[in-house]
């Protein structure tokens, strides 16, 4: 488990970049009505065959040889299991990969969002040629961020220039911010609590 959702996002998006993707589509859904939070990353990278799809879910697969890397997917999967959600991983060689983690929103173990804007900008700056499209959908609002659109406006200026990147981060974080109408204490995750006690 990682400290927040932005870390999972960055980890999975960097897998896509390492897989040579030129387009990465990220979809972050946070719905109280459906009691669901999900994070989905789709890319058009080199993809994996069936055997590889199994292997990358095994936490021992990469740790032995290369150390330090390779735990992102097993952690992402564990997150889904722990938060009573589901994990999906589909891949086709030379086509790309789709990975999705869905969590029960009111589950106690759902991590905080973290700095999503920062994670997206960090991913963008790993390889500036990669096109990243981000969609955020909640019951209240929808927000999109598209690196291609930003680049068209910027022309020759790099998106990773300090001023531009900090603007992007702030723009994204503002775009996905929800009004704090949540009943923070009253009835706080009570259903998740009782679920746990009975299980």
């Amino acid at each position, binding site marked *: *488990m*990682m*400290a927040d959702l932005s870390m999972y996002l960055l980890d999975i998006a960097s897998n896509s970049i390492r897989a040579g993707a030129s387009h990465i589509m990220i979809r972050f859904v946070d719905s109280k009505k459906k009691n669901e939070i999900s994070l989905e990353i789709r890319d058009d990278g080199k993809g994996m065959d069936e055997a590889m799809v199994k292997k990358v879910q095994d936490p*021992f697969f990469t740790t032995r040889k290369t150390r*330090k890397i390779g*735990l992102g997917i*097993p*952690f992402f999967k*564990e997150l889904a299991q*722990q938060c009573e959600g589901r994990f999906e991983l589909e891949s086709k060689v030379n086509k790309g990969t789709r990975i999705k983690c869905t969590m029960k929103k009111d589950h106690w173990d759902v991590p905080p969002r973290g700095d999503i804007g920062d994670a997206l900008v960090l991913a963008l700056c790993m390889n500036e040629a990669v096109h990243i499209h981000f969609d955020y959908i909640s019951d209240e609002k929808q927000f999109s961020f598209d690196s291609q659109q930003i680049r068209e406006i910027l022309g020759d200026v790099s998106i990773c220039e300090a001023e531009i990147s900090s603007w992007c981060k702030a723009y994204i974080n503002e775009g996905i911010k929800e009004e704090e109408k949540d009943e923070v204490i009253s009835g706080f995750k009570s259903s998740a609590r009782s679920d746990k006690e009975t299980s």
Partner: protein
Amino acid sequence: MQVKEFAQKTGFKIWASEKALEKEISGVFVGDLLSWVIGNSEANQIWITVQSHLNSVAVSALKEISVLVIAQDAKIEQEVIDRALEEDIALCASRLSAYEICKKCVELGL
């Protein structure tokens, strides 16, 4: 202290290969956030957690943890036990809380 001695003195249930029993213990780390453990634990420590997922064994292998102690009777799947044995990581289970286990470690001079 060796893993063998730790297991004898605490009386915790243990699954360990011969090689795992011989390992030295240098200290104790407590935490349930795996990425945090990766960032902050040190080799040869005992790691106390309630996370009994297979990923905990992988993190233990990565960080060269001597003993993975699962606190408060958190459920341990057979797959986790098998993998710990295979990786020469000693795996312990206790009904005590992480805090109570820490107290035992202090008593043992760890």
